[in-house]
């Protein structure tokens, strides 16, 4: 009887080993705009902070310090005519951004809202062809290696440089990046984006549910 109880207990306890949860934050620092060489406004340069959770083959990345759209008044002095001129600057920012990757179902869900417009997309998880260069760097105590790839958004191609740690067997990273034999701690493309992972916390027993995004808008399924 005791043996049976023990075996039952053992099987009950099994799934917990697969309920490990990784949490942290990604900070994205943009220093340059895409496209023309106009200067990026100071408000756009404020780093964006995303909350990242990985659990049971699903990961979620959510923007937590949204600024939305801001309108600033700028007062400038024209020396020539000795007058003060008022001008307004409108910076369009993202007020909501959620990315959910489901590695089991192979879906990549994105939902973001900006200046009143909400966009929702679903596609298979993008496949990246990585080239590992074997340069190494210590990030927050983790031994990381460098890998590069090209990110194609349909409109442009970005050269992405990522640093991943093969000791952490989670094949995920910021935004749509994934597929390296280790967790991506840093990913950047020149001055356009620069994601850094911080506050790495891991719990073996935390069970959390990453829910797909609920929306009443009709789905527009994109083909890769």
């Amino acid at each position, binding site marked *: 009887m005791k043996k049976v109880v023990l075996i039952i207990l053992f099987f009950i306890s099994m799934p*917990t*080993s*697969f309920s*490990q949860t990784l949490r942290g934050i990604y900070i994205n620092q943009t220093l340059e705009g895409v496209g023309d060489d106009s200067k990026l406004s100071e408000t756009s340069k404020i780093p964006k902070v995303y909350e990242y959770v990985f659990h049971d*083959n699903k990961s979620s990345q959510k923007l937590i310090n949204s600024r939305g759209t801001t309108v600033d008044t700028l007062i400038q002095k024209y020396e020539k005519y000795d007058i003060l001129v008022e001008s307004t600057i409108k910076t369009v920012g993202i007020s909501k951004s959620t990315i959910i990757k489901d*590695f089991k179902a192979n879906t990549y869900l994105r939902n973001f809202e900006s200046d009143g417009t909400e966009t929702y997309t679903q596609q298979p998880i993008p496949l990246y062809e990585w080239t*590992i260069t*074997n340069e*190494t760097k210590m990030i*927050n*105590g*983790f031994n990381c*290696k460098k890998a590069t790839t090209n990110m194609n958004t349909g409109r442009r191609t970005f050269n992405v440089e990522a640093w991943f740690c*093969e*000791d*952490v*067997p*989670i*094949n995920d990273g910021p935004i749509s990046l994934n597929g*390296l*034999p*280790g967790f991506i701690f840093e990913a950047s493309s020149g001055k356009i984006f620069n994601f850094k992972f911080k506050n*790495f916390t*891991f719990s*073996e027993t935390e069970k959390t549910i990453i829910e797909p995004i609920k929306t009443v808008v009709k789905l527009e399924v994109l083909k890769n």
Partner: protein
Amino acid sequence: MNYKSVFYIFIFWLFYHTALFAQIKIQGTVVDDTNRVIENANIIIKEVNSDAILQFTKSNNNGVFQLQNLKKSTNYLLKISHLGLKTLEKRVEVQQENMILPVITLSRNAQALNEIILEAKKSAIKISGDTTKYNVDYFKNGTENNLKDLLNNIPGIKTNSKGKIVVNGQEINELLIDGENLYKKQHQLATENLASDAVKSIELYKNHTSFDQLKTNHPSGATALNILLKDSYKNKIKGSIQAESNSRDRKQISSNLYSFTKKNKFSLIQNSNNLGKKGIGDDDYFSITEGDDEQLKTRESGVVYANSTDLPQFLKIGENAVKLNTNFFNLANIYSPTKKTKVSFFSIFNNSDVTQKIVTQQSFTDSKLTFTEKINSFEKNNFGVANLKLVHKRNENTLFKLENRLIHDAIQGNNDINNLESENSINQNNESNKILFKSNFSLLKKIKNDFLTVNTFFNTNNLSTAGQIFSNQSFLNLNFEDDFVFKQNGNNRYQKSGYDATYNLNLKKVSIDLKADYAIHKHNFKTLSTTNPEYFNSFKNTSEQASQEIGLTYPVFTKARLLFRLNNNQILHTINDNEKLSNNFIGYSTSFKLKFNSNSTLELSNSFNNSVTNQENIIPDYIIKDYRSILENENLKPNTLFPSNKFNINFFKFNVSKNTALILNASHTYSNKALSSNLIYKNNYTISQFTTSPKDKLTTVMLFFDRKIKTFHVDFNINFTSVEKEFFINSILSKYSSNYFSNSVNLKSNFKHSPIHLKIGCNYSFSDFTNNGLKNKQYTLQNYIGLNGMFKKDFYWNLAATNTIFKLDSSERRMLQISPNIRYSSKNSNWEFYCNAHNILNINNAEILTNSNNIGFNTETIVSTLAGYINIGAKYKF
């Protein structure tokens, strides 16, 4: 079909298969320990002995993975990992194409990732409670040679100009090597001799209690730094030997040996040189001759002012000699047979031969009396101290301590003096031999919250002196028969034995200390002359001394503490076995200490004390000091008391974020009855009589500021001392005052990766002395710059340049010292080669000016300094 075409087909078939041979593919299946297939396991393949990833893939939903384009007969390392399972690393040798590996099982390990995270979080500095642990590898930048270089790289820790380790602005109380206080206060013996490669980790303990103390309920406030060594440096004899020389016979041989095992720690340091390098500094000398317990007491950020007459000659010389040979030897050993017992032995021997060339002019206030002399002196000094201490800590509440110390100091001096005014040519020999033995047995006991300490002690000090003066003329108005020769011998014996007991009562808020002590002191002082037997001194004082003290510590509010102590003393003197004299006096001290936080304290204190006169000053007849000075006692009695009142302010602040340290210490001591002199002028000599004077004031201010600005360290130091005394000239009251001001500014670079490191500074000092309105001034200005760096990976260079200007009222001297050196030291080799040049612009002896001044006279001296040298040397480490 002919054979040729068959042959070609065969060759083609062979090539086809060979080409295929290059395309080796391996396949495997990953399961867990219940035989369930694992999907999305990471598969990485690397070359053996390389960390570079060649290929990577993932297992599919059947647990199967494939790797292609591998080379045959090559050893690969396969690494398979998955969240929640233990990572497996496996060697694979690809023997055939389409190799199928046996099933790979990953065992369950929920801890795996946690362990990786903890490894990663093993950050450079970890603080837990009162212990701070430093991960040494993080702080290395490749140029470190010894422990001193390593400590200076760690934030908050550095070594100061005296070689002492300073943490967060304050000197540490104890330096431990693997938990043992082997080097006492001689931090530089450890920092300069332990290789940086020997250090595994460094720990800092706050509120530390050393082994020979009992832990109290209050935080002790003491800090200790523990250097933990790598196992490869333990249970072995390690060390180094170094030798350098040049064609002019300037040389140095030094060696150090250390061996650390679990129960025994041993260190031996030897240095013989004629380059003017001291084996031991002034601070260290005082710390040896003072008791251990004085050093381990909770530190206030106080400053110690020492009288230079207390320093032995070999420490005062520095480079002010024509020739200086030093042999220094230090042995330290701590043996811990059990966890409760420690036997520690510590000894220092120093032997030096000094040849000096001095031109001095001494003029006396309010008189035409001036002595201008050319002196060639030769002195030999043997100094040794051996200290043996046994500590047995029976349990957390009981401690036994037995400490024995033996000091031997022998000086032999020979001076050839030429007096330019009187054309007197003198040869003076002095010999003194001092043997000092101290023994102290203590019992420390903790009784609930209270402490009991009982000490019994025995001290004996025996000094014998012998002197001879040969002259070509009469001197001191003595009676001479044939030659102008004077010989005298002296013996000074002192013995003290007694006990003291302290009971420390810790009530809820208040803490009360009760102390009582009793001792018998025996002074025995004799001099006699073989050439002039009419002159002799004999004095004996056996005194019984007792004192009782009560102390109160009261916390005024949470961050402040008030301390008050009152003592009562009784002394009964028996002079020359018949006359009886007595003393009865009190003393008190108060202090108010404010502790803003652990890095900022302020203390105000005041104390009033009486001290009995030094029995050696009770000279019954007179003592001949040299051919033109006589010492006498005018009106001191064996029970003459000298009261003194002292006010003190101590402020310490360390700002962790800005990395700034500020220390301020100001004190004022005054007395309306002090030991002084009455100078009596004769035609060609002076008599100095011990007497009491109604005024003696001393004011000192010390300000020290240290700050880290970006990649530089700046420190700034101001010292101010003012003395005001009254004395007598021919029994007429006269005034003496002196002011001393010094200022130094130092800037040091702290670059992590730079070919050059920089140190620059400026020291300025000014002093003036006024005797009855006659003023004498002196100032020195010193600028220095030091550059050091590394080139071609293993070559280190160092260039130091110092420019000093000495200025007295009548003369001025300048000295430019340039000292370059270059060193070759490779990580792969135990050998090191170097070329050391010191003061290369003064290859012949240069001269510096010094001014010594005291009540009633002013002395200007020109001293020859050691010549510079260029040496080639080698060092072997084992």
